[in-house]
């Protein structure tokens, strides 16, 4: 029984480590963020619109990089939601088992591509060959939120597709059979039976995918540019929150300076947003999950 106790103790402390990780994350963000707001007023941070924390004179209006993040995430979800949902419908309701067996691993492969690879693709192909060539508005340069958003959408597409497909697979066959027996076509079964029955899973998948897009760093750093730019034109380069953290953090910022603290303030904002999205996603699944017999 002694060994049993030791085993339980050791395994339990391994599990507790994950909670400690979260606590450490919160603490690492909190202290410099509090110090940051001792030097920069929350009012300036949240309401002014000029972002230049590493320049002189330093300006700390966070809106431009928040809007940059919003543009990239919005474009990403506009790509990933319809295409991911379409792919899920196809795999769940249309594809023959043989075809499914080939396509699913390829989608998994897409999900396993490192983000640096997506970022390089956005920088060297999507931006110069697509955005620069075809985007009609403004003077498009090497960087654009649009290019970064399109490729981020490609990155989160497998998340939307595979989680939505899981939700669709959980819809019982009897519902489909009933609808077919009433004379529904396959499209009608998809849109009027499977989709409503799987909606909670699909929404949760979408929220999780948005959270991924908001937190995506390498594509933003490489392709969205390092110029904070509050603009209505997504074809232009815009720094995102993650883009700022990545760029400022990879330079040699001295500990304790205002630039160093700014990284943590933006990090806190990013963590708060993604955390809220993740909790929302988990809640949606718990609250609205239909349980079928």
């Amino acid at each position, binding site marked *: 029984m002694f060994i049993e106790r030791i085993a*339980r103790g050791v395994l339990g402390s391994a*599990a507790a480590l994950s909670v400690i990780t979260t606590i450490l994350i919160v603490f690492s963000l909190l202290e410099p963020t509090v110090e940051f707001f001792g030097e920069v007023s929350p009012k300036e941070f949240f309401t002014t619109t000029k972002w230049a924390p590493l320049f002189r004179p330093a300006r700390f209006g966070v809106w431009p990089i928040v809007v940059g993040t919003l543009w990239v995430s919005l474009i990403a979800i506009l790509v990933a939601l319809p295409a991911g949902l379409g*792919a899920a419908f196809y795999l769940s309701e249309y594809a023959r088992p043989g075809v499914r067996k080939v396509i699913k691993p390829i989608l998994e492969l897409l999900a396993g591509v490192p*983000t640096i690879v997506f970022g390089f693709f956005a920088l*060297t192909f999507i931006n110069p060959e697509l955005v620069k060539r075809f985007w009609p508005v403004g003077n498009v340069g090497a960087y654009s939120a649009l290019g970064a958003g399109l490729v981020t959408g490609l990155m989160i597409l497998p998340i939307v597709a595979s989680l939505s497909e899981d939700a669709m697979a959980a819809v019982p066959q009897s519902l489909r059979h009933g609808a077919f027996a009433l004379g529904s076509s396959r499209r009608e079964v998809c849109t009027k039976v499977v989709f409503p029955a799987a909606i909670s899973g699909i929404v949760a998948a979408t929220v999780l995918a948005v959270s991924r897009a908001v937190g995506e760093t390498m594509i933003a750093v490489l392709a969205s540019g390092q110029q904070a730019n509050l603009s209505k034109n997504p074809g232009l380069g815009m720094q995102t929150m993650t883009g700022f953290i990545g760029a400022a953090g990879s330079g040699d910022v001295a500990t304790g300076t205002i630039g160093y603290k700014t990284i943590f303030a933006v990090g806190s904002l990013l963590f708060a947003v993604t955390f809220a999205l993740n909790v929302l996603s*988990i809640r949606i699944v718990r609250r609205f999950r239909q349980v079928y017999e």
Partner: protein
Amino acid sequence: MSSQTLIDPSDDVSMSLASNLAPTRRLRDGLFRVLLFASIGLALGALAVLLLRTWFDGKGAVNLKLLENQPSERPQRAGIQSGIWGSLWVTGFCSLLSLPLGVATAVYLEEFARKGRWYNHLIEVNIQNLAAVPSIVYGILGLAFIARGPLDWGPTVATAGLILALVVLPTVIIASREAIRAVPGSLRAGSMALGATRWQTVRKQVLPAAAPGIATGSILAVSRAIGETAPLLLLGGLTFLTKNPSGLDDRYTTVPLLAFNYATSPRAELREVAAAAIIVLMLVLLCLNGAAILIRNKFQRRW
């Protein structure tokens, strides 16, 4: 994950019904089908373009010199040797930490944790949340507490490995839990009926039976660690290091970090080297993913 379709979707009643649909409905159904094909086509086509484009960008620089040369600003002499060694060291240390910890956590949650206790519920929700925390936030944690701050390990292999271990830990835990959960309860009941304790049952029955699933999940987690770049930006890995690391407290760089460095260099010729580094990275990941799929298909028993 597995959708057990009772009917073959390709040839059931609906097809015969579809042929009797009124023309507008049939048109809509056809259109819907085309849209679905387009969605799949977009995903697969974009992946193909990405792979081909990177291949043609970098194939001229994929050769032994790339692997042998150290990083350099001069295109003819630019290589990724220190990055390869750095990736090996960092990923090795990361695996050494994350795999045992992840499997132990999974065993605890599946086999030892009493359901309904608040702390076990807390751990479960917490892991779900950690899995979705952006990796750059882990970089911030490393910057504040490990590279600088209390531990002050500096920009070393140990710092990078530890932070990557935390990044992939939720992946290992979730995959291992699924593998352990798939082991049927009758196996445990049989073992315990013969007088084995819980720990003996886990060690002799559950873990061996779950090993293929755990291995698959572990390989996928390790390949994620190999490709992970964002947190390392903050942990001092972004250098043209010309010396291979030879210990945990040495400075490091990794293959994806070098690819990033080459891609952002002002010299356009270095983009080819970046693409070549990415090809090397993708080949390694392809092999690992292939191995994972192979293990899953070959060794995973259905109960």
